[in-house]
């Protein structure tokens, strides 16, 4: 095999989820002894295409070639046999077991596991690939960076020639990133091929020989690893804005801020700080867009504002009512309407549309000690009509399409006339018609004077709807731009953590 022959080649890979095209005829190849980065925003299809290569998902169309030979990859087992390894964002290690046992699990074919042998094998592969791990340490006692080393070692010990790393730096501190890159450079020098999935420009430039940029399931292009950041940012997010439907003649945001946040901090799911010292305000009749690659604190911000997560510091005020640390009930009572990112989990799928529509204020529907069924059904019929929900009142919410589920949430929240709306990813996964409907509803609320905080990964959406835009990176607000004439390149740099360089 010559140096320029692809070790792994993907040809015209297409993958659809329902109406959504996650990968649209993607071509990609990685050569021997090369780091080839896959760069793109969330939802661009980077992970999906590599999950296909590793057999975690099957493509609808397309071909996978390893060393020039077509390969059928039905499961990770097939991929591993062909020399492909992948370290996913969620590690597949057995936490209570030792490093040696985890490595042995990945390889053993016999019935018996000899503890001494597993330890010696682990030490041997650790030595051979120059990746330091303690074979007798329990995985649960290791730092995330060390666990990642075990994952990489697990892949290498199965004789992997092509290593796919899915956002490997997302969980690492800077020093660990440096160590990872040093390791990767040595491995690549020995002939390993690495696919490096990331959305961080600086890291992609630091480690990659070539960079392929994906956007909305399409490959935009492949460029040299030394391409400058502005160019990469433009490829990643830059596209002409289309269909700006925000009426420019509409009432301009006016008056005092209704939602005011000062110095807000909160921890993420693993108890690590996810939100640091965020301050912002939203006026009545204003849509404040929150841009940023996901995982930079937006989820925690919305959770805190929804009453689902307690902040560790800071203040949240709606008009003059202090709400930091309030539970969902108090948030709603203060006039905060919430359209969350995970719409499935925020409704009760097995309960009817009618019940879900009134669940936030059940006490308004009681007669004596019992539920006012007739009142609930009348309410449901009214909201189904007004919000064009394609369902009957008795249908369980779980049987509805994504668009109709979102309409149920919208109806539940908007029908109560909130003064503040906290909206996250309102059109993700929706078809064109539902998307348009949801956006028009938000704009109607803006017109009525509601203060709207809109979190979205869809830049087009943010640009189309927002009066102002803030960008979040690593839990902080790193910049603010006017919505109407945002500079895409500047925005892309801010999102990729290169605010100061711009």
């Amino acid at each position, binding site marked *: 095999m010559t140096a320029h022959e692809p070790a792994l080649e993907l040809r015209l890979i297409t993958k659809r*989820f*329902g*109406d*959504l095209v*996650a990968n649209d005829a993607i071509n990609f190849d990685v050569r021997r002894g090369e780091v080839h980065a896959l760069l793109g925003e*969330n*939802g661009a*299809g*980077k*992970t*999906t295409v590599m999950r296909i290569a590793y*057999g*975690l998902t099957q493509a609808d169309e397309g071909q996978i070639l390893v060393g020039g030979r077509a390969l059928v990859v039905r*499961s*990770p*087992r097939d991929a*591993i046999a062909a020399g492909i390894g*992948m370290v*996913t*964002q*969620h590690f*597949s290690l057995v936490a209570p077991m030792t490093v040696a046992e985890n490595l042995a*699990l*990945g*390889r*053993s*074919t016999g019935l018996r596991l000899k503890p001494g042998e597993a330890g010696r094998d682990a030490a041997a592969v650790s030595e051979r690939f120059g990746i330091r791990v303690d074979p007798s340490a329990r995985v649960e006692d290791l730092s995330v960076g060390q666990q990642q080393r075990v994952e990489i070692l697990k892949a290498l010990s*199965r004789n992997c020639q092509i290593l796919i790393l899915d956002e490997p730096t997302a969980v690492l501190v800077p020093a660990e990133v440096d160590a990872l890159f040093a390791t990767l450079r040595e491995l690549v020098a020995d002939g390993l091929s690495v696919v490096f999935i990331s959305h961080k420009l600086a890291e992609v430039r630091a480690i990659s020989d070539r960079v392929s940029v994906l956007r909305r399931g399409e490959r935009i292009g492949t460029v040299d690893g030394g391409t400058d950041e502005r160019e990469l940012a433009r490829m990643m997010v830059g596209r002409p804005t289309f269909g700006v439907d925000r009426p420019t003649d509409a009432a301009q945001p006016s008056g005092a801020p209704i939602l005011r946040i000062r110095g807000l901090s909160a921890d993420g799911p693993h108890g690590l700080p996810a939100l640091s010292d965020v301050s912002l305000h939203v006026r009545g009749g204003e849509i404040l867009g929150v841009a940023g690659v996901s995982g930079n604190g937006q989820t925690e911000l919305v959770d805190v504002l929804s*009453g*689902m997560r307690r902040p560790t510091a800071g203040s949240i005020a709606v008009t003059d009512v202090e709400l930091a640390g309030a*539970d*969902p*009930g108090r948030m*709603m009572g203060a006039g905060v309407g*919430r359209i969350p990112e995970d719409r*499935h*989990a*925020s*409704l*009760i*799928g*097995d*309960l009817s549309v009618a*019940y879900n529509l009134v*669940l*936030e*204020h*059940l*006490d308004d529907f*009681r007669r004596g000690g*019992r*539920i006012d069924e007739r009142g609930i059904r009348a309410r449901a019929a009214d909201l189904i009509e007004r919000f064009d929900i394609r369902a009957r009142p008795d249908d369980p919410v*779980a*049987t*509805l*399409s*994504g668009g109709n*589920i979102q309409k149920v949430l919208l109806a539940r929240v908007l029908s109560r006339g909130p003064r503040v709306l906290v909206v996250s990813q309102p059109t*993700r*996964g929706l078809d064109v018609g539902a998307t348009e409907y949801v956006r028009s509803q938000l704009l109607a609320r803006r017109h009525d004077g509601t203060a709207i905080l809109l979190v979205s990964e869809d830049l087009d959406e943010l640009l189309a709807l927002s009066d102002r835009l803030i960008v979040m990176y690593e839990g902080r607000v790193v910049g603010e731009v006017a919505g109407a004439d945002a500079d895409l390149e500047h925005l892309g740099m801010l999102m990729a953590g290169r605010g100061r360089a711009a």
Partner: protein
Amino acid sequence: MRISPWSTPVLVLAAVLITFVITAGPILVAGANPIEAYTAFVITPLTSQFTLLEVLVSATPILFTGAAVAIAFRAGYWNIGAEGQLLLGAIAAAGIGTLVGGLPGIVALPIMVAGGAVAGAAWAFVPALLRVRFGIDEVVTTLLLNPVALLLVNGLLHGPWRDPVTGFPESPRIAASAEFPALIERSRLHLGFLVGLVVILAAWYVLSRTPAGLRLRAAGLSPHGARFAGINVSRTLLGAALVSGAIAGIAGVSEVAGIQNRLTGGLSPGYGYTGIVVATLGTLTMPGVAIAAIFLGDLSIGASSAARSLGIPSQLGAVVQGVLLLTTVALLAMRRQRSGRTGEADKGGSVTGDVAAEGQPG
């Protein structure tokens, strides 16, 4: 209207038929004709007044424990401790029952029932508190409190409550006015059965007709979604656990006041655990619990009479019950998996989502 092959009644009926096919093996081994055996198990007990009443007598305690377990499970609180809660209710009944001799039954009985309910709820309170405060798994804590309750019973019976006259490990007989009267002259069917039906009816009403019941169901179906909608899920779980414990406690009162008239070590042959079976077979609905309790009562009376008439071990009744539980759970799980698969098309939004578990090859 077309009936779905996966609707609950069809499913449970299928489970019964599959169970009969599977248990035909052991019955043949025991030397009996399966058809004859099933007739003896299920049909024969319903054909005479005496056995029919006995069926209801043996359904009485599991009517309570079934309802208790079903309520907790509906809230997503896995109370495996109905057995211990029942024993605490029995202790309370045996204690109160000896003290209320001077009172008329109309006063004494409600006091005793209330006392048993409070005792059962108190026994359920500690694990429930540990769950909502510290997230400690209630399956483990409620289960482990069961043998503790039994030790408490035996400690009392071998200590302060030992019958002073006979020296047997049995508590003194409760006052006559504290005994549950028979519902039908010269039968063992007692007031407890009626109380059980009232409890089932009340639980059904609360679950399906009141805001509290809707909150409880919402919390059980999706704790996250319920919390998001402003429901205090911790308080709901705590409430469900206490009500569940109280109902299980009344089961103990019913056995003491209706059957034994005193506390004995063999008061409950595992009625709390059978309650889990009843609740599962009844698919956690109150009408289902009532039917399942009576069906299991039928089976247990049938099995002991079949032991005499057909000469087969009476444990075959327990075998049928166990296999029925497994087939029902299996069919319910298959239904859940089916609906999970059809619902999947909608969730295409998370294209970048990772699977938590990579297929572990090798």
